[in-house]
């Protein structure tokens, strides 16, 4: 498992991939931060780091699929899947190795954003509890979407298709809570309740308010487990179906 993890990290860090994604993330984060800080005096606007995350999440949806699009699609494309599948490594370990590597890049990405709270803390005051919660929430959010992006990648050989489809699904997740609030869905309260409970956005907003709720953590972790398990099943299924 470790060698797959290492190899995935290499393939992300030896190429400009991880850096480009991290740079883009930093750009989005910085831009939102500057805008927020710039408009502090002029309005009743209350500035909080968690708001930045909330805003960034929309753009963030473009970043995660780009990061995960190659995980399985490229293995198929280059025929290296055969190597992995005929090595004494179980499929579970292959999936986990790749997942952990992507999580590491994700952590590398958000680690850069720590710069702003640190600088702010030196010159002012930061509500640490809320900040920490926002980061935890953001981490769970990302971890879930990485699992989803990997799952999408395991369905295709074409990494671009994987990225695009991944984005569509993530957008669907993002808009699920707006959709469930519409009048139309409001006619069916049970359906509304079900749809709303699948929406990840409101759950993240609890984190960004500084609330760690067990139900939210359970939601994210079970979503991760479901996606990874599906990923595992899908790889096995493709082996069986191949021909």
């Amino acid at each position, binding site marked *: 498992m470790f*060698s797959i993890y290492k190899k995935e990290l290499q393939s992300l860090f030896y*190429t400009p991939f991880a850096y480009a994604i991290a740079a883009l993330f930093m750009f989005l984060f910085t831009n939102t931060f500057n805008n927020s800080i710039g408009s502090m005096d002029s309005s009743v606007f209350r500035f909080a780091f968690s708001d930045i995350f909330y805003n960034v999440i929309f753009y963030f949806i473009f970043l995660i699929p780009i990061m995960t699009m190659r995980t399985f699609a490229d293995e198929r494309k280059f*025929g290296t899947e055969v190597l992995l599948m005929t090595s004494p490594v179980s499929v579970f370990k292959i999936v986990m190795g790749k997942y952990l590597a992507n999580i590491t890049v994700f952590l590398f990405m958000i680690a850069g954003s720590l710069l702003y709270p640190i600088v702010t803390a030196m010159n002012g005051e930061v509500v640490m509890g809320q900040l920490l919660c926002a980061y935890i929430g953001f981490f769970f959010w990302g971890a879930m979407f990485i699992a989803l992006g990997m799952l999408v990648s395991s369905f295709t050989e074409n990494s671009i298709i994987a990225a695009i489809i991944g984005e569509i699904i993530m957008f669907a997740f993002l808009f699920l809570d707006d959709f469930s609030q519409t009048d139309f869905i409001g006619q069916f309260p049970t359906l509304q309740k079900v749809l709303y409970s699948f929406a990840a956005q409101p759950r993240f907003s609890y984190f960004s308010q500084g609330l760690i709720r067990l139900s939210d953590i359970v939601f994210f972790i079970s979503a991760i487990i479901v996606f990874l398990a599906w990923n595992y099943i899908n790889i096995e299924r493709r082996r069986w179906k191949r021909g």
Partner: protein
Amino acid sequence: MVTIENLTKFYGSNRAVNNISFTINDNEILGFLGPNGAGKSTTMNMIAGYLPMSDGTVTICGTDITKDPVKAKQNIGYLPEIPPVYPDMRVREYLSFCAGLKRVPFGQRKKEIERVMDLLRITDVQTKLIKNLSKGYKQRVGFAQALLGNPKFLILDEPTVGLDPNQVVEVRNIIADLKKEHSVIFSSHILSEVSAVCDRVVIINKGNIKAIDTIENLEKNLGGNMLLHIKLKGDRSKASSAIELTDGVAEITKINDEGNGFFEYIIKTSGDADQVRTEIMAALMRNGVQINEFFTEKPDLEAVFMQLVNSTSNKSGMQQLYEEIMAENPEVPAEDDNAAENTDTNSDKEGDE
């Protein structure tokens, strides 16, 4: 020792590999021969544990590959048809990744990587990106990967495709050397290659085994009749009648007058060529004919191959398979009988399509 029993693969309703069984002994090189689309790669993928089989078992060094895949795969080195290399990695990096994947103990990795790089002569490209390598080098990097960790059983799917003639010879020598420590199955559609390296061959077409035998036996049993060349000096009519009267001589195809009383006879035999040869010699001696040269021309291996592949009844091949199965488990003759019949009807059906 690797045992393959009743291996079958369906792609949808299409039977790609049909109930094949054979064994690969220790320290043996088994050639796996067949035209394109015969089911070679499918079979090899199944043996390597990449494709699941529809039916049958593959046992590698005593471990069933479907029951304990991780343990079974530790004994396998596999070079697929397309070398499984990452274009964005450097050769050494790639090999080090593969060594980790194959659980080569950390302390031995460096030594092991150097050993395989040395063996395949890729040491001078170790810092290059794989995507910049030529096809031949990529193939060799893939080969090196298969040798990492010194697995007991090697599966090589057309290892010499895309190599230049020098490299082909090199790779063949490497394969021949591997015999000392490994059992090898390697596929090819080039006959000369197989006959140069292999101890035994399995010939397969349309998913059916056409023959399992040593090259010599194949030539003898299936290559039709051997040609005997005799150069002799003496009375021509006496010699001719002596030869013609010998049992097992089908016909004298040609008599060349070579001058100075020398004649060259080319004789087609039927039956055991060795036996016929002895008898002809004896007959000629009795008649006082002086023999100057005597050799047996082996039938063209290519012809053997074509004959086997194109035979629709595949009687001889099936017969051998049947005998081999019988020898291994004689207690189930009825089932095997059916299997043989099924295979026959199936191949007929495929022929109709």
